[in-house]
């Protein structure tokens, strides 16, 4: 059976980079209760990232920190969806809805992976991501079906995030044999179920499903948006300034 390192790394990077963006919200949320909620979700994602990074690094003797802090931008394999700026609460919730719904479908399927470790990590993450979907859904409903202003802002946020969802279903980066061996889940197979769930929420929230095509999004191949360099510069700077020490 082939080593699923690259595949696991991609999922780990999704969670890590999403968590990095969510951390920004702590002390900036619309209400105190939401500061707590967003931190919870960020912590769940960081936990997923750490487990997956450790799994990915085990084969080559690299630690979670080696992988998080010492890889360069082109070596990160997260989708571009999660790396972009998100200083608007509507954007944050639109993205959380898309990303968590995809993660929930993915981890549900991966709970049956033939890789026992990956299956165990996924089984834990299913419960976490179910809550993230629930949280995002409740906010998208409230913002979509709230005031005129919130409706307009939420629609704009959905319009902005929607094109970036497509990369979640790309298969280009994936070694076919992993799917055949039952280690990985074919991403393209998730598109139907994920979009069906997303469209149901948008509909209930009185929002339109954008008819835009997909964005040019090649994070899975290591070609990121310009935002990624700044994100990593901030995240990695301190660790890299003191090579080889303990923290």
């Amino acid at each position, binding site marked *: 059976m082939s080593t699923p390192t690259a595949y696991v790394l991609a999922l780990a990077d999704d969670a890590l980079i999403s968590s990095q963006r969510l951390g920004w919200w702590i002390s*900036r949320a*619309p209400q105190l209760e939401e500061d707590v909620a967003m931190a919870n979700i960020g912590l769940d994602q960081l936990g997923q990232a750490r487990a997956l*990074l450790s799994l990915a690094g085990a084969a080559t003797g690299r630690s979670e920190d080696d992988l998080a802090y010492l890889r360069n931008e082109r070596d990160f394999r997260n989708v571009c969806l999660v790396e972009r700026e998100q200083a608007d609460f509507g954007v944050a919730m639109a993205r959380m809805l898309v990303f968590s719904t995809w993660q929930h479908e993915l981890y549900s399927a991966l709970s049956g992976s033939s890789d026992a470790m990956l299956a165990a990590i996924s089984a834990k993450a299913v419960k976490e991501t179910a809550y993230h979907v629930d949280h995002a859904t409740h906010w998208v409903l409230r913002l979509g079906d709230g005031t005129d202003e*919130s409706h307009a*802002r939420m629609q704009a946020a959905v319009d902005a995030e929607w094109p970036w969802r497509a990369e979640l279903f790309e298969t280009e980066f994936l070694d076919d044999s992993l799917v055949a061996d039952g280690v990985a889940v074919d991403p393209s197979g998730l598109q139907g179920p994920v979009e069906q769930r997303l469209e149901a929420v948008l509909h209930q929230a009185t929002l339109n499903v954008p008819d835009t095509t997909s964005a040019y999004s090649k994070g899975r191949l290591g070609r990121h948006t310009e935002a990624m360099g700044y994100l990593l510069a901030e995240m990695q700077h301190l660790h890299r300034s003191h090579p080889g020490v303990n923290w």
Partner: protein
Amino acid sequence: MPRLDPCYTRTPEMRAFVTRAVTVGDVYGNDFTTPEQQPTPVIADRPDEPASFRALLETDGRVEPRDEMPEGYRKTLVRQIAQHAHSEIIGMQPEGNWISRAPSLRRKAILMAKVQDEAGHGLYLYAAAETLGVDRADLLDQLHSGRQKYSSIFNYPTLTWADVGAIGWLVDGAAIVNQVPLCRCSYGPYARAMVRVCKEESFHQRQGFEILHTLSHGSEAQKAMAQDAVNRTWWPSLMMFGPPDDDSPNSAQSMAWGIKRFSNDDLRQRFIDMTVPQAEALGLTLPDDAIRWNEERGHYDFTPVDFTELFEVIRGNGPCNEQRLSHRVKAHEDGAWVREAAAAYADKQAARHAQEGAA
């Protein structure tokens, strides 16, 4: 090294400390007003005190929200609990400043959880204040407009990663010395909130100590970073206990009500006595040459704190006053549309349910 385990103290010494403490003490040791801003204490209003209130205090009972209480007691509590809550949420910023740059994923997770706790603690405390008949929204307005203060310690910048350690060790350490007695304060909702806060905070100080311990046993650069952070944080952390009691007019009133049991100076001394051996264990020095054990007093001697700086910071002239408040106000204003949407949605849903019910 003496270990603090707030609220659930295991050493007889700390248990005695908790037991002796009865009522509300000033949060973080001071009430964040300069002497000229402080109201003149009115010690002589005892005749107005309801007998039931007096009786509760005299029997070490708890005052609950709907009990009769003197207006001054209520106001003092509202101000103190609100300032405590404000301190928790403003306190998210200096440490939150390092979440994105934490040098390991383990440290990042710990720090996120800690800053999240601070939001939670602010929330518990606002809830306690609301039992006294005020609204959280009004208290936040008062914070945002500068009418209510928060602890001055958060008006200092976190310049390096070691500051996260120094805040945990010294700032949370000082806060714990102040907060443990509050677990037994006379106002029930405040005491209960503090029990929860103390229970959750037991990891905060230790993680700070651990950060500094790792740094001080690491590379030369790491050790220098740790020492620098301690040098900068030491004096402000001593100021957290407030001015000497002679210059703290509210102390007298609080003592008279049993709102405060320990003097600012006593708490400061206690903090120093606990901290000096911990600094030795860290292999770091405290920036005060006068610190030495005084056998006769049974305490460490130290250089008297120069409070000129504290009052300047309280007046708004600290390094980060402007930044902390505008960050907070911006978050609040940026979130207004979200809160309005939630309210509008709730109204719509209620109307829909009413319609369904009528049909």
